[in-house]
């Protein structure tokens, strides 16, 4: 018998989840504002106090592990050669590693772009370019430019294998903090995430959390093991696949709507159909996309920006609101919570728009092509039509009075048959907000994490 304490240091809240392995259950959850600006331990202690109060006694935990997205999370830049190929591969690796991509560059870097890496305070750079045996000129140019511009940010090189040695020489010559990994796209349209993703996590744990003042907490807990979004991705994959004799839920989608981003996770094959031809870069089985311009507070203006004037007018007339003002208020008051039915109504509306648009960007498309050999289906991206469950998480979804209305926006409500959205999924809610914690637990006790998740995902 043992007790686990799982901590999620979020940008706003530090969330604690206590698990008793003998009971195979959660014995308490608690949270407090994250205090990374002063000292991350203050918020943790307050949250711990709240937890002990909830449980009714103090507990000596056998293992205390944490994930973190505090202090801006993990900010990355993805650099590649061609936008649809190595740039896209680099982006997917960053997202799969739980990062937020703040800068994306293709082809030859410019000095202006290299400067941006510094001014935007990027935590880690992923430098890709060229399939193995392919183009080396561009990526060598880019590595050299990073050296000449004295960019002292950790650089993970995951481009063409052929010039690994030359890249290493450039790293040494300019005294750069560089690391060599396997190519993210060794062959055209083949995606290879593993090596670069592990290296990113390693750097995050060794350097980034030190720089952000998160590492201090390790004086009191065992360790910080993952960036939070990566923990959620592990939880999602486990919940979908199952573990040993314990079956999973099958193909799932998770919608996480936060203040600054809307994250979508889909856990399924790119397609189960034999009558389609799939194009483009290979799709990961566990795919995460992050929309940095869709969120409830910090990124609320992005929702409006994505709308036309006519659409704004339509919403205002249809719903009897002034959506532009409402969004501006939320952007200026990021810690505001709904106080009355009107506020709730607006938050609900914004969340629905985030869910709809985030899925629009995440989901694959199919195109009917008339050929002399008959109708052919040409697919780009992931086919989510057979998804069994769409699971909602994030404060606005969990606290919504009608979460199904938000989650339903991921399905094909506008009957656009080119988008391969879920058709008839069941809806579920992570009502205890435990996905990240269970992703953490899955690193130690996968079977237990799976059982707890299945117990606490509420069918709507």
């Amino acid at each position, binding site marked *: 018998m043992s007790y686990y304490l799982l901590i999620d240091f979020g940008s706003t809240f530090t969330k604690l989840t206590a698990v008793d392995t003998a009971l195979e259950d959660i014995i308490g959850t608690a949270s407090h504002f994250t205090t990374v600006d002063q000292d991350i331990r203050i918020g943790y202690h307050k949250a711990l106090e709240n937890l002990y109060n909830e449980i009714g006694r103090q507990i000596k935990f056998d293992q205390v592990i944490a994930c973190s997205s505090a202090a801006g999370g993990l900010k990355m830049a993805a650099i590649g050669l*061609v936008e649809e190929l190595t740039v896209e591969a680099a982006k997917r690796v960053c997202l799969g590693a739980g990062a937020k991509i703040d800068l994306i560059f293709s082809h030859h870097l410019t000095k202006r772009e290299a400067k941006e890496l510094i001014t935007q305070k990027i935590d880690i750079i992923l430098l890709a370019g060229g399939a193995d045996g392919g*183009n080396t000129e561009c990526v060598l140019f880019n590595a050299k430019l990073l050296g000449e511009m004295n960019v002292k940010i950790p650089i993970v090189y995951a481009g063409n294998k052929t010039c690994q040695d030359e890249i290493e020489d450039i790293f040494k010559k300019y005294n750069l903090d560089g690391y060599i990994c396997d190519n993210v796209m060794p062959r055209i349209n083949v995606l290879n995430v593993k090596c670069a993703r592990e290296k990113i996590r390693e750097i995050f744990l060794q350097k980034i959390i030190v720089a952000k003042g998160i590492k201090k907490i390790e004086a009191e807990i065992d360790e910080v093991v993952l960036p939070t979004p990566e923990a959620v991705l592990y939880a999602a994959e486990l919940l979908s696949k199952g573990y040993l004799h314990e079956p999973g839920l099958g193909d799932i989608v998770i919608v996480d709507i936060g203040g600054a981003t809307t994250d979508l996770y889909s856990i399924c094959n790119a397609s189960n159909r034999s009558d389609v031809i799939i194009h483009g870069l290979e799709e990961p089985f566990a795919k995460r996309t992050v929309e940095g311009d869709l969120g409830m507070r910090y990124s609320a203006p992005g929702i409006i920006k994505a709308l036309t004037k006519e659409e704004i007018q339509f919403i205002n007339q249809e719903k009897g609101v002034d959506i532009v003002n409402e969004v501006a208020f939320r952007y200026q008051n990021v810690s505001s919570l709904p106080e009355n039915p009107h506020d709730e109504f607006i938050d609900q509306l914004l969340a629905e728009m985030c869910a709809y648009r985030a899925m629009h960007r995440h989901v694959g498309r199919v195109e009917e*092509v008339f050929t002399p050999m008959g109708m052919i289906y*040409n697919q780009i991206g992931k086919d989510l039509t057979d998804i069994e469950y769409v699971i909602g998480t994030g404060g606005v979804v969990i606290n919504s009075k009608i979460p199904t209305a938000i989650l339903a926006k991921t399905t094909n409500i506008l009957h656009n048959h080119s988008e391969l959205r879920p058709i008839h999924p069941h809806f579920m809610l992570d009502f205890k907000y435990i996905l990240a914690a269970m992703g953490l637990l899955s690193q130690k006790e996968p079977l237990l994490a799976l059982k707890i998740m299945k117990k606490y995902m509420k069918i709507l």
Partner: protein
Amino acid sequence: MKSIVIGVIGADVHAVGNKIIEYTLENAGYTVINIGVLSSQEDFINAAIETDAKLIMVSSLYGHGEIDCRGMRDKCIESGIGDILLYVGGNIVVGKQNFEEVKERFYKMGFNRVYPPGTPIDKALSDISEDLGE
């Protein structure tokens, strides 16, 4: 050995010849990047950039090759690989036309080699080694 990008352009799904070309070129020692059927001009060009290919070999078997290939050289130039060799072959135009005229039209479009219907891929091998200097 140098890299060659091959594929079938446009709304064309003829996959058999495409596999034969891949097999033959690989046996001849080339690194073959086969982007398969239903490929756009951009798919060919993107693959050529990433793999540093010296030659793009476009197949078209359904008669629409002329429309599908138009502007491809310009896009190569725009993409920074203006010097790349472009070959095309198959049933590249509609109906029975004088192939010498067809060739001329494709040369004008910027293709370096144009092959009539029924050309075995082995025949192109000597052209490839001559053009690539191998």
